[in-house]
């Protein structure tokens, strides 16, 4: 429990970065799909 409190900022940082990475990959793939349809 103490470790959780001590490293809370780093835990929040890791979670936020994972969410941002997920959102970025999702948006990139949507972008790519749209581009492919536009080309057709």
């Amino acid at each position, binding site marked *: 429990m103490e470790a959780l409190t001590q490293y809370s*900022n*780093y835990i*929040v*940082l890791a979670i*936020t*970065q994972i969410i*941002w*990475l997920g959102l*970025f990959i999702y*948006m*990139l793939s*949507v*972008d790519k799909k*749209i581009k492919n*349809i*536009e080309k057709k």
Partner: protein
Amino acid sequence: MDKLLKYGLFVWLAVVICFAIVAPIPAVGTMGERARILYFHVPTAWVSTVAFIMALFYGAQYIRKRDILYDYKAASAAALGLLFAILATVTGAIWAKFEWGAFWNWDPRQTSIFVLILVYGAYFALRSAVESEEQRAKLSSVYSILAGITVPFFVFIFPRIVDSLHPDPIVNSSGKVKMDTYMLIVFLSSLAGFTGLFVWMLNLRVRIAKLNMKENQA
């Protein structure tokens, strides 16, 4: 170039997130670590305001030019504005729980953003209630103009004329910025990153709308 901008945005926001969450923060009143919410809460509120104003602009463009694409652009901007307004409300409520002791206090800032969410929720209710595309575009464009006019009042005027527990806005009533230089740099970087993210999201939504339009016409 296009790809470079997207990857650039990814790196930019990833670095901003690191600075916002881990880097030491100067003392801001009695807030301590809770002041970090500023780096996420204010940019989401800012983006929602920009989006609502853009919805007003595109609504007016539709009325002028009668091009259905402007209606799609207005609806896309309003949808993203609503999403970011909800994010600002949720982040604000979480902060309020720790700072004020309750998630919801009907503070002027909370009330004004709640009213804006209702106003733009009604915009989408209106859109879904009209079947004819042209009629829907006309009505919702007029509505987005009227709703957009209320945005500066709810965001900039109302919270400043009523007593509030909410911390001072970044630009205070005397028109000056009261913020530590280091915090200001991280904050402005976050603001730029969130604005870039919004522009990309809007671009995707508008392109999807264009494809739908083409499919409907075919």
